[in-house]
């Protein structure tokens, strides 16, 4: 099975996260066609109804739109994609901070650590 899914979290949530990630990171390019539910379900090895629900949610969020001629396509609204990207980034950072706090780091320590660790890359 191509998609590596956790066994203890709802599949629907994981599919959604993964699809968002693929759109934001440009694996599914803006305006490109999204494969059919069945193809995606087969590729991921998941239930087609669950895949359908995840795609419907992406559609509700506006990341995917349905066109009469070509089925589902990835949105070309770059603003929307950027926003989603920011949201995902924020979620990652919050998760990160949460875990650092669990390790006993203070805010300043965390910032200093990030600077020293990623310094080369950031500057």
């Amino acid at each position, binding site marked *: *099975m191509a998609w590596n*899914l956790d066994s203890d979290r*709802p*599949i629907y949530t994981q599919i959604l996260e993964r699809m968002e990630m693929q759109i934001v990171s440009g694996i599914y390019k803006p305006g490109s066609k999204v494969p059919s539910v069945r193809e995606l379900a087969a590729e991921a090895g998941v239930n*087609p*109804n669950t895949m359908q629900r995840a795609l419907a949610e992406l559609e509700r969020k506006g990341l995917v739109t349905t066109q009469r001629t070509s089925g589902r396509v990835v949105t070309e609204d770059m603003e929307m994609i950027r926003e989603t990207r920011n949201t995902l980034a924020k979620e990652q950072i919050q998760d990160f901070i949460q875990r650092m706090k669990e390790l006993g780091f203070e805010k300043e320590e965390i910032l200093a650590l990030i600077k020293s660790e990623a310094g080369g890359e950031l500057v």
Partner: protein
Amino acid sequence: MSELVNVSNLTMVYDKRKTALNELSLTIPRGKIVGLLGPNGSGKTTLIKILNGLLCPTSGTALINGSKPGPETKARVSYLPERTYLQTGMKVKELIAYFTDFYADFKPERAKEMLTSLGIDENDRIKTLSKGTREKVQLILVMSRDADLFILDEPIAGVDPAARDYIIKTIITNYNENATVLLSTHLISDIENILDEVIFIKNGNLVLQATVEDIREQKGKSVDAYFREVFAC
């Protein structure tokens, strides 16, 4: 009539002493992939045989599309038993002709396409094929129907991981939105991602019927892990 399968107070007693099903009642909706899970001897195969008209229950009823198992239901149910039931003297293409003759919903082109993709020659006789290939031929025949209900008894037991993936893919791509797939297995972790719902049975009784997502959400664990917990010895 909205439910595809309606089982009520189904009881099966073998030889007047061994109870395989005990007043079992459940319903199975349309358009779902449902896992029938339970330890060995829990009554899975007995239920499956009754739904296919291979066994007459001691009491209670099992209805498919509102009818008792019989010629009308058999025309709408596609069944993959644990056994290989293919006549060994027949060629693959003769089997395709056989299925085309008897099942109005059988799609020979679909079967041929799948055979080609697996590199199975239609002119081969069943007796010349390996056990694994025979099982694949049987799965292809069963999945090439546009049935209302697919009943697959242990479809992935005893096959290698590559074949397992192929079988799972075949199930996903071949069933249509209005059809239901009922599959029994003890290899839950391999198959739980493709299930909508699971039915747990034990000693012929219904233990639980729930959606996979509900179990994961509410218990915070996989169906496989939850199954182990429920049936812990």
